[in-house]
């Protein structure tokens, strides 16, 4: 049996439906708590420098790091369950890697400077900057999602 192809008009209409379906995802407003919790978790990182430089300090540090990682994994899973889908990172992979590297560099630089100059607040300044960046990204993505949602409601 030969496949009957759609007319160019029908094909164009199908492509519009494809765009509409993909656009529906962009209207998903990410939960505010995700960004606030992530920012708080980043902001407390320099606290690690207060651990005593001994075996006990190392053990406490490792346990704290395991707890921190477990909380992060729990939060990401909770986020995915809340929004109802697991984002595909293909298109934003470069952006994610770049922001991760930049945040890591700022945090590491600030913590080294705090240690070098014996000024603990420098570490918190760096982590605070990264945390503020997370909050800004969160606010922008929530605003963008709301705009998509309102546009969709107007179109309906």
């Amino acid at each position, binding site marked *: 049996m030969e*496949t009957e*192809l*759609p*007319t*160019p008009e029908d*094909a*164009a209409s*199908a*492509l519009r*439906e*494809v*765009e*509409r*379906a*993909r656009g*529906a*995802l962009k209207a998903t407003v990410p939960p505010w708590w995700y960004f606030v919790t992530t920012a708080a978790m980043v902001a407390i990182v320099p606290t690690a420098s207060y651990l005593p430089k001994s075996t006990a300090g190392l053990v406490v540090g490792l346990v704290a790091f395991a707890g921190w990682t477990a909380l992060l994994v729990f939060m990401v899973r909770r986020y995915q*369950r809340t*929004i*109802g*889908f*697991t*984002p*595909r990172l293909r298109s934003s992979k470069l952006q994610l890697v770049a922001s991760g590297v930049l945040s890591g560099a700022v945090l590491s630089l600030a913590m080294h400077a705090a240690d070098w100059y014996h000024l603990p607040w420098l570490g918190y300044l760096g982590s605070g900057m990264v945390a503020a960046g997370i909050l800004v990204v969160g606010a922008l993505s929530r605003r963008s999602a709301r705009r998509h949602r309102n546009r969709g409601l107007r179109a309906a």
Partner: protein
Amino acid sequence: MKTPEPRFDQTIHAPNRLRICALLDAVQSAEFATVQHKLDVSASVLSKHVSVLVEAGYVTQRRATRDTRQRVWLSLTDQGRAAYQGHVAALQAIVAGTLGK
């Protein structure tokens, strides 16, 4: 990224199935209820079309329990993703008038 070969797919072309594939192509996986809500279709309609896509080997279903309730997560298989992207490329070629030339 490699441009997909235009390949018209009758299974995907049905309007609701095309929309399901379009949504699933943009994510790694999505919860059944989310797909239903985003595409504004009834659970029975979505279930019927998902069954066809599962039978074709284009979609997989994963069951997960949340708050003591079973949730179904849907995702495109590699074969499904390739078929969907080939189908979209075929639609674009039809619009451009280049399919089969």
